[in-house]
């Protein structure tokens, strides 16, 4: 079989896939808006309990990681492989840092007895139960996507070190970058919905 490289085709495929990812989260955003509309006061009160400092730090971390991602792609297109690898490492590191902060945040909540099905949470109003149910589901699913993103980027790192991704063949890195930006953008929506709107 002859191999063919279709740059535009690969891009179309990736964007279609990202579209399906957006709709996956779309279902959750639908639930969020519906329950928020039904329980505005409970959502308002529950949101006060989230740690806005950690949330802001995590937002900065992810945005910076997206910048590094873009710089990594830019560098490989310019033929600077070393710099590209360095930026990619930076992206992966920031991704891990994001997950660590998330871990600290979740642990603190769980230690306070605020986790799904906990007696303390079930003792609260139904709107707050839903808020934390959605909080754990949505940030959890997002965290899972960050983890998948990190794994994909690690594979890209190996391919780059092996020289299989280079100045002439960088579509896989570009598409992984698109995925990373998508994960970033989803967080950009999650952050205000859970931490800021009170």
């Amino acid at each position, binding site marked *: *079989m*002859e191999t063919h490289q*279709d740059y*535009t*085709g690969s891009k*179309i*495929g990736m964007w*279609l*896939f990202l*579209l*399906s*990812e*957006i*709709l*996956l*989260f*779309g*279902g*959750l955003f*639908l*639930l969020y808006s*519906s*329950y928020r509309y*039904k*329980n505005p006061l409970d959502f308002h009160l529950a949101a006060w309990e989230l740690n806005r400092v950690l949330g802001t730090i995590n937002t900065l971390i992810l945005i910076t990681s997206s910048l590094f991602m873009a710089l990594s792609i830019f560098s490989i297109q310019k033929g600077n492989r070393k710099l590209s690898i360095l930026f990619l490492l930076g992206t992966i590191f920031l991704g891990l840092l994001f997950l660590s902060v998330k871990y600290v945040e979740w642990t603190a909540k769980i230690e306070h007895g605020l986790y*799904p*099905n906990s007696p303390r949470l*079930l003792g609260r*109003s*139904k*709107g707050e*139960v*839903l808020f*934390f*149910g*959605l909080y*754990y*589901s949505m940030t*959890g*699913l997002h965290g899972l996507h960050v983890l998948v993103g990190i794994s994909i980027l690690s594979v890209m790192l190996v391919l780059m070190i092996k020289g299989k991704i280079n100045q002439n063949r960088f579509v896989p890195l570009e598409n992984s970058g698109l995925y990373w930006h998508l994960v970033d953008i989803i967080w950009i929506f999650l952050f205000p919905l859970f931490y800021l709107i009170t």
Partner: protein
Amino acid sequence: MTKNGVLEGTHPIASFYQHQGKYRGIFAWILSTDHKRIGLLYFSLILLFFSVAVFFGFLMRLKLIAPGFNLMKPQMYNSIFTLHGIIMIFLVVIPAIPTIFGNFFLPIQIGARDVAFPRINLLSWWLYISGATIVFLSLFTGGGPIDTGWTFYAPYSLRTTVNVPLAVFGVFVLGMSSILTGVNLVTTTHRLRAPGMTWFRLPLFVWGIYATAWVQILATPVIGITLVLIMIERYFGVGVFDPAKGGDPILYQHLFWIYSHPAVYIIILPAMGVISEVIPVFARKRIFGYKAIAFSSIAIASVGSLVWGHHMFVSGQSDLANLIFSLLTFLVAVPSAVKVFNWVATLYKGSIELKPPLLFALTFIFLFSIGGLTGLIQGALAVNMHLHDTYWVVGHFHYIIFGGMGFGFLAAIHYWFPKMFGKMYNWKRAAWGWLILFIGFNVLYFPMLILGWEGMPRRYYDYPPQFHTLHLISTIGSWILIAGLILIFYNLFQALRKGPRAEDNPWGGATLEWQIPSPPPTENFENIPTVEKGPYEFQ
């Protein structure tokens, strides 16, 4: 000797069956990225799952042969109708035409050597077989076979003790497979059309698959997240669908039907594409209203994505929502009717050759019309109150899914069989099989419409004696139908074993797949053809 770069089958050419790849034996199939081999891989699995699900359907009908007949325990009955639904919907009718015939023929019909992402295509198949395996594993692990009905409605699916999480995880994996197939087929249609293959020279089958692939990409993720939430609910009890914790089961129904109604169009659009191929070829006439049919596929795909609420008229959603969903339901009938009128107009004054593929295609039009019109009846709000969750609905959707998609699928098999396998089947036996199936189908499903109208609820384990006669007729119908299926597939297997060699173009089709040898060579075309005319311009 070539014409337009297309090889004429005068000298023998190695078919893709003889291709010597990297792997041998079964690995030459399950690791192949050839779209034709992948199509046949799906074919074998789908036929297997189809026979399993038919068997479950047979058991259900047998149980209902008489009131009080004690063939199985109620719990067993619940599992069997659930499995019949899950296997038929998610493993058979949703994937069947796009993965088998879409994979095999879409690239050939647009003049390409393969799909846009051959390796992702293979990954889709692996996800498909993994998802199927997980669903079957769920029957024997955890609390045993799932009993929720194929809709997994909350809160029952959160409470029942059977193995719900594994089963819905299997369906989730099947969804990923479906999304990737959609991505592949959309990209292929956009990027790999041969020179001269403009959008309005695309065979209508390609239009049907293209519209379907979009629905697969856009709707499937929504059921994906819904199933994930069922799993999260069961393991962690977050409460988003649990009324005891403030969750709203009606929202579950919304999310479920946002996918599962468009899934009906994933099921029917490819079959409509098949019919649009078969009718002009056997009427020897250019199709009537090409653009109307092409655009009606897109219209069905888009409007069809906005009618899900008609499954929920009695759920307690708002009256305004009911009104809007009912209106949209009536609207979606328009593009479907456009297709039916165009097919009939194509037949008008054509020189009709009544060969097996056309028999199935004509039956499609008849049965689909009954299915569509009964759908409109139950789409009216007042009537729906009476018909909701009765056998009427069961009758209606079998007329659409089996009468429509099923007969479309059989039309596709009989139309493309000689191209796929290079063998011809016995036409007479195929026609007998068709006749028996057609009779069995109506004897099986028409009584259901009457039963439902008289008030027989669906999914019930038993019924009062006044429904006996119609249930008995329906069960007898199931035996006739199965006899028809057996004859049809026996005929095809006989053809595989010792059928005569098929010509390259036995039906005189004008689309590209009929211009290459049967079965096609590994890369379909020696040189990529240049297309100079439309798909239905017969000499």
